[in-house]
């Protein structure tokens, strides 16, 4: 770390902050992946978490995932709530016995000293009704603000986790605000330079937050979105149905779990947009969530019949 140029240090730049986390988790043996190339509400939706959490094979990975939460749009006016923000996601299966220690060490690696800051593990029973998933763990607080989610997955996509995977989700902007000592996410130094060379988080994302907030709440084309939801649901079911094969020794196999799951991700994001637009009633809401969950469960079932997902 000493060899790092100043502008790459985690307390100087948002990008240096991300690199420090990647480096820390790479040292723990994680595969460092890149973001999934689809819109999703949380890093948990990345197939590297949802699907890889299933089945007995060990899996350790970490990655940044842009997370889109249309309803969280605030037209760029809220200091720490965005409709597009970055999560840093770590998944370790089976969950190692020292996962909490590793988490605290990772905070130290990005400049958060537990002896100085008030770090707490506060009960949070995590549940994703759209993913048919639940787990137990905590929200991790730093000086009273939720900065990470820490979960021991018990069930994902309707499938019991055996063994259990541990999942860490860092809210990158909020943590970086601590480390850089700024009160507004848009004031974060993105590239670690000063003066004319300095690029802030606001330079990169403020306009996008304003435009997307307008889009999410006022203008998103609802007729198109309803149609997209229907199409994604239909395509998911079609791919799932076509993917089954009779494998060797009379075993059922699935050959298209991943493409089917993409459509489930799609449906979930489209639902979030419709929800933000306020065109889904309270009763319809439950039924939409149930429809996405049914897709997720069917994808999980398919996945545990694939080469990577099945028991050896």
């Amino acid at each position, binding site marked *: 770390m000493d060899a790092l140029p100043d502008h790459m240090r985690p307390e100087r730049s948002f990008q240096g902050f991300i690199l420090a986390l990647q480096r820390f988790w790479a040292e723990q043996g994680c595969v460092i992946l890149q973001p999934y190339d689809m819109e999703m509400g949380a890093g948990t939706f990345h197939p590297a978490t949802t699907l890889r959490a299933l089945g*007995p094979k060990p899996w350790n990975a970490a990655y940044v995932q842009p997370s889109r939460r249309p309803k969280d749009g605030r037209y760029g006016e809220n200091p720490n709530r965005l409709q597009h923000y970055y999560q840093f996601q770590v998944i370790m299966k*089976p*969950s*190692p*016995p020292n996962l*909490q220690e590793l988490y*605290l060490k990772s905070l130290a690696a990005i400049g958060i000293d*537990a*002896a100085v800051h*008030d*770090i*707490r*593990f*506060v*009960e949070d*029973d995590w549940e994703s009704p759209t993913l048919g998933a639940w*787990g*137990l*763990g*905590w929200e991790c607080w730093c000086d009273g603000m939720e900065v990470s989610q820490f979960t*021991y997955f*018990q069930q994902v996509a309707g499938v019991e*986790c*055996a*063994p*259990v995977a*541990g999942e860490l989700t860092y809210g990158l902007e909020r943590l970086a605000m601590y480390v850089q000592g700024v009160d507004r996410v848009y004031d974060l130094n993105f590239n670690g330079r000063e003066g004319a060379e300095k690029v802030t988080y606001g330079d990169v994302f403020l306009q996008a937050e304003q435009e997307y907030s307008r889009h999410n709440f006022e203008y998103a084309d609802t007729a198109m979105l309803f149609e997209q939801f229907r199409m994604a649901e239909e395509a998911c079911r079609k791919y799932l149905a076509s993917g089954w094969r009779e494998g060797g020794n009379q075993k059922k196999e699935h050959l298209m779990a991943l493409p089917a799951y993409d459509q489930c991700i799609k449906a979930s994001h489209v639902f979030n947009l419709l929800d933000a637009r306020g065109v889904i009633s309270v009763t319809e809401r439950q039924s939409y969530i149930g429809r996405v969950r049914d897709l997720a469960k069917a994808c999980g079932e398919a996945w545990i019949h694939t080469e990577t997902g099945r028991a050896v």
Partner: protein
Amino acid sequence: MPDLLLELFSEEIPARMQAKAADDLRRMVTDKLVAEGLVYEGAKAFATPRRLALTVRGIPARQPDLKTERRGPKIGAPDAAVQGFLKATGLKSLDEAKIQKDAKGDFYIALIEKPGRAAIDVIAEILPVIIRTFPWPKSMRWGARSAKSGSLAWVRPLHAVTATFGLETEEPDVVKFSVDGIEAAQTTYGHRFMRPARSRCAVSRITRPSCSTPRSCSIPSDARIRS
């Protein structure tokens, strides 16, 4: 009389569950002790975010011997019935049986004496059962062992169990048992941030909630500081 010290060391227990869990632990352990004939002098339970702990003071070193009578066949009963009676009671011959008269005739009676067992052995049987059946409102599985069915469920991952039994004035013994791969021992861990070192537990120092030397460090109180 000896004291029992038990500490269950885990990851952070939800705040709303801690007090009741300490209560449940005290109730379950002491109920079982009494049911086993081990009447104690006093018990106190503690909870912090990462610990449930219990001290039970003044437990007899052994269970009392148990004497029971068992009624057998009538005098002159067929041989099969007599043999069955001897086998079930462990008597070598009918000479060892008493004879009791009642309205229906004369019967053989066996006096069975069951010597009490050492309390530490009884406790070693009681504790793993209590840990496995602990009434958490919600519990979870974790780690490599969760791949197999029947793995331990606890409120959050359980890391260590301290269980000692002995006189206040002497070095206590470890109560030997294990649950799902966790061996009961005599080592505990300090507060995550304030005092992370490992310490040896001694039952005689349980009354002090904070610690100065390893010998006197039993239950660092992390409740007040941080989770």
